[in-house]
């Protein structure tokens, strides 16, 4: 049974088909890259999987369970965590509270605190634990947003352009952190990214989207030399 299974998803915005029968399976745990030119439908796909927008047709399954059109909070309770392309954190909450905030954690917050501090230490944010998130730089906020996904032990993690706007030094920290988290608890990581160098090194398998459906998938080396992929990017 696949962790995530997407079947013939369609979504139109006016005259634009953002998703045009998109189908793929994530059969086993792993770090998967999701790439494609702008407008390929990657973020729309994330928004459908996380329940923010409803598809016109098609189906999403999580571990064999049909979760199409479920509300975002129910999907979160089921173990889907995500970050946002525009980077969202709670600016007034401290970094620590940003990690601890999740209804499914509230009853054992004290036990989670040590774990939260450990995660912050891994990305060098421990000294900001008590500072409001608004005081962080953009790159640090990205890290915080990503770190904040892990406390609730999700089954499926969706990263929407984690490397965007992050400087090269922090990028190394970020990649190391994601790899480390995967080693600690192997589950399904799906990473949308435009930074090819970053994603080719991070992911074990790449899924390429183009015009609302999957164009190709395979190992990073195979993808970067695929004629179809190069053509899609160069248009």
């Amino acid at each position, binding site marked *: 049974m696949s962790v995530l299974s997407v079947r013939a998803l369609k979504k139109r915005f006016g005259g634009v088909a953002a998703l045009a029968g998109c189908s793929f399976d994530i059969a086993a745990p792993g770090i998967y890259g999701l790439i494609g030119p702008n407008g390929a439908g990657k973020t729309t796909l994330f928004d459908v999987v*996380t329940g*923010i927008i409803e598809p016109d047709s098609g189906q999403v399954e999580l571990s064999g369970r049909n979760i199409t059109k479920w*509300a*975002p*909070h129910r999907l*979160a*309770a089921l173990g889907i*965590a*995500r970050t*946002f392309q525009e980077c*969202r*954190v*709670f*600016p*007034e*909450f401290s970094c620590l509270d940003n990690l601890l*905030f*999740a*209804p*499914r954690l*509230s009853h054992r917050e004290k036990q989670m605190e040590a774990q939260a501090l450990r995660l912050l230490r891994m990305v060098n944010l421990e000294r900001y634990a008590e500072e409001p998130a608004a005081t962080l730089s953009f790159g640090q906020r990205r890290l915080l947003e990503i770190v904040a996904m892990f406390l*609730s032990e999700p089954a499926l993690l969706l990263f929407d352009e984690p490397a965007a706007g992050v400087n090269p030094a922090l990028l190394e920290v970020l990649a190391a952190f994601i790899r480390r988290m995967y080693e600690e608890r192997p589950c399904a990581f799906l990473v949308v990214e435009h930074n090819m160098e970053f994603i080719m090194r991070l992911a074990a398998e790449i899924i390429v989207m183009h015009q609302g459906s999957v164009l190709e998938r395979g190992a990073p080396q195979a993808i970067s030399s695929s004629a179809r992929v190069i053509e899609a990017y160069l248009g």
Partner: protein
Amino acid sequence: MKSLIGFVAVAALLYAVPSAVREPYLLHVLVLTCLYAIPAMGLNLMLGYTGLVSLGHMAFAGIGAYTAAVLMVDAKLGFWSALVLGTLAAGAAGGAIGAVCLRFRSHYFMIVTLAFGLMLYSVMNNWDEVTRGAAGFAGVPRPAPLGAFGFGPLANFYHLALSAALFAFAVQWWVVRSNFGRVLVALRQDERLAQAKGVNAMLYKTAVFALGSALAGLGGVLHVSFLRVAAPATFNLAESINSVLVVIVGGAGTLAGPALGAALFVGLPEYLRVAAEWRLVLFGAALVLITLFAPQGLGGLIAGGWRRLARTRA
């Protein structure tokens, strides 16, 4: 712990006012301040903590007030049961109407709450058989005595209004310190993120709308019992907007804000006998200054000053 001691000290001081002050007019003004502060505390939970700007808040105070008036005068129910039922009716109406309004966001939400406020006002103003219409619902009784303690004397009614205001304050306090309150604050900061973390936004927002409306209802029942008449004008659009001003000027999202705002907006002008027209002009100016220079209102200003003072001493 420190804040609890402060709260008890302030409460004791306020309870002692009638024994120190013999001037009835000042007590009258203090009662009105409490009666405006109670709905404002409800609105503060919605506006200050959750970010829901309702422009129909006082209409829910009206639902509580008219429910209690009808129960007491027509159904001959006692004051205390009517107080509880009026409060609950306002809360239930808030939950039901809130669930509709909350389908909309930001300024659309404001417009829909404004529309519901106007509709409820029309009902109060025109449903002559039940609300007695524009003439007002006369003969609303003062609270029934509790043992030997009657509420006819002004000082005693003041103690009742103050107790209700302190109760509303305690509700705010409890909410803000609870997990419920933390979710509300998260929703104000970023609703989409809160949902992605597992928050059922609609449920929480409806709950706070119901709670805020219930507090409005509590204030409404006491208000008409104090004036001994329920009039639609007490619950119209202007009063709803006043309530928003009270919260923002006092300090949205601070515990003491609504009480400070009510003292400044109702208490002070009333005591200084400023004409009602001038009141809005002065308040408009204060509002502009506060949004520009003290976005957290008076409450935030005082808290900030206190922190600075504590730092310089340390």
